[in-house]
């Protein structure tokens, strides 16, 4: 990665922190409501043989809702409303540059297994984001994955996910 260029005089634009804060708080309230609803149907009261399955989660759900509402209130109407930019465009780009390939990588693991997907992922990450030469990248990723392979499959005998298509089945592990 190149060093972070100081944007200095440029105005950072993006969503204000309190908006993100409010969204997260709302999600917490919704989560709390889901927990309350779920434990209600399970029986949150007193059954013939003691407290029901939903007894404890029910109260957890209530506290979750209270804390969510509290945070929401603080974010929107609190004295120190945080109007700073949550992430600016440049930062968001950097974060997504890691997050999206990582999600694609997990999807790839599902099909071609941990080893193959990881090797491709590391190599591509180095080539595209790190601007390394393809040969260097492929060698590095191969070495790293070979190390993992020996560590997990051979030394510690912990089998890893080979994927639905098992491209490495010829190795016999």
């Amino acid at each position: 990665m190149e060093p972070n260029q100081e944007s200095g005089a440029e105005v950072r634009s993006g969503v204000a922190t309190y908006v993100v804060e409010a969204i997260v708080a709302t999600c917490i309230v919704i989560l709390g409501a889901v927990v309350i609803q779920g434990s209600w149907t399970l029986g949150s009261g007193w059954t013939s043989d003691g407290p029901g399955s939903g007894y404890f989660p029910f109260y957890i759900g209530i506290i979750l809702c209270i804390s969510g509402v509290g945070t929401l209130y603080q974010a929107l109407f609190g004295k120190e409303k945080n109007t700073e930019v949550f992430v600016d465009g440049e930062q968001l780009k950097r974060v997504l540059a890691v997050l999206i390939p990582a999600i694609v990588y997990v999807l790839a693991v599902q099909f071609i297994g941990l080893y193959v997907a990881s090797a491709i992922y590391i190599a591509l990450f180095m080539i595209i984001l790190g601007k390394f030469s393809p040969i260097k990248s492929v060698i590095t990723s191969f070495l790293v994955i070979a190390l993992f392979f020996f560590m997990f499959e051979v030394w510690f005998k912990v089998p890893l996910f080979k994927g639905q298509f098992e491209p490495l089945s010829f190795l016999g592990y």
Partner: protein
Amino acid sequence: MEELNSLFHGFSVILTPMNIVLMFVGIILGVLIGVLPGLGGANGVAILLPLTFTMSPTSAIIMLSCIYWGALFGGAITSILFNIPGEPWSVATTFDGYPMAQQGKAGAALTAAFTSSFIGAFVAVVMITFLAPLVAKFALKFGPPEFFAVYLLTFCSFVGMGKGSPFKILASMTIGFALASVGMDTVTGQLRLTFGIPDLMRGFDFLIAVIGLFGIGEILLSMEEGLAFSGKSAKIDPKVVLETWKKLPKYWMTSLRSSLIGIWMGITPGGATPASFMSYGLAKKMSKNGSKFGSGEIEGVIAPETAAHAAGTSALLPMLALGIPGSPTAAVLLGGLLIWGLQPGPLLFVEQKDFVWGLIASMYLGNLVGLIVVLTTVPLFASILRIPFSIIAPVIVVICAIGAYTVHNAMLDIWFMMLFGVVGYLFKKLDYPLAPLVLALVLGDKAEDSFRQAMLVSQGEMSIMWSNPLVGGITTLALILLFWPLISRVLAKIRPPKQNEFAAEQPVD
């Protein structure tokens, strides 16, 4: 001295060549984890936990706890040489450590940091040796209400002593509890909150949460900052080490005070980060050279490092004696104990003597080995940080994915890990503390069990929480801590408090 006998028995248990090798491996892996961004004590141990499933519990815990010591040591390297705290608890070390490195005294700063880490840990281990059996003996008398009261105290003290919005601490904690209740109900066997998805029957494993929240979340944060490491180089030669050691006894008061702060903050779930800040602040106030703090004062390195290490070590006391971990990493170690079929808590000291005293003995040896390893290998670890982030980042993502998969051999867990990663990133940015979430996720089932058992005994009457002085006292203390944010506001009206000058720099842990 029954404890000393047990301790020597412990040494005899662990002193096998294999265990010594594991100790070195653990320390080196731990320092590596402490140095790398995105891998810390908690998720490092979580990822490496599956590797130890084939070992005997004693060997496994020796290796895992050594990883933990290593991570505690490693945090100091990046703070001093690169001004980047590798771990939240080493933020305070950067204040004086980095200026020292800039003045060309990196070797002295590192030696001071490592040595005081060792001293802090040593004092804490001595405390554990003598206090843990007593606490365990005392806790043998506990019934469900007492245990629930202790759980309550643990979680309420997060609210009372935590930094930041109490609502956020509560939210983070209850999310942990809610996730913990997903899956099979441990009492009735009913499926809970699975919404008909069979894979959710297993529930959310806290290891997945730890790996995602701390690992992926940290990588996303580091990316956002566009990390560029430009560090000072360091070489530690024996002469510098000896010279620094000669200077250290002068600061025995600082070391002692910091150790005590660390021990106190570690036993109560305050954690290493607040301990290091508190100790730095106090040292600045009490020292003759207080005004020079921040410009490369060796005392400013000693204070936070001693406290952080003492806190990190003492966090294991409640984990061993009560089954209640004082920090996320201790929680992961507790998870490991459960996986090996050991029930942490007071009975551990009666039923698994070999294991407990082996672990305590390994704390003594592990820290000594750690000190030797870090003093000799600093240049090596410093050079790791010069590896471009675009190689380190994908490798860490891969390691996290492998770690998440090996917990249950379940592909779905890798997806959960990514989800937790995004949540971790958002929560970190919004100052939600992550430690309560992890601890609630680990202790959720047990806290719920003791709560329901207590309620069964009393037929739903809350008054059982005040049925005898012990349980009543703990519960009352817990409630005071829970409402401390309100109480302190009232107190502030009556008497305005002193401003904490480091409040802004201290991360929400």
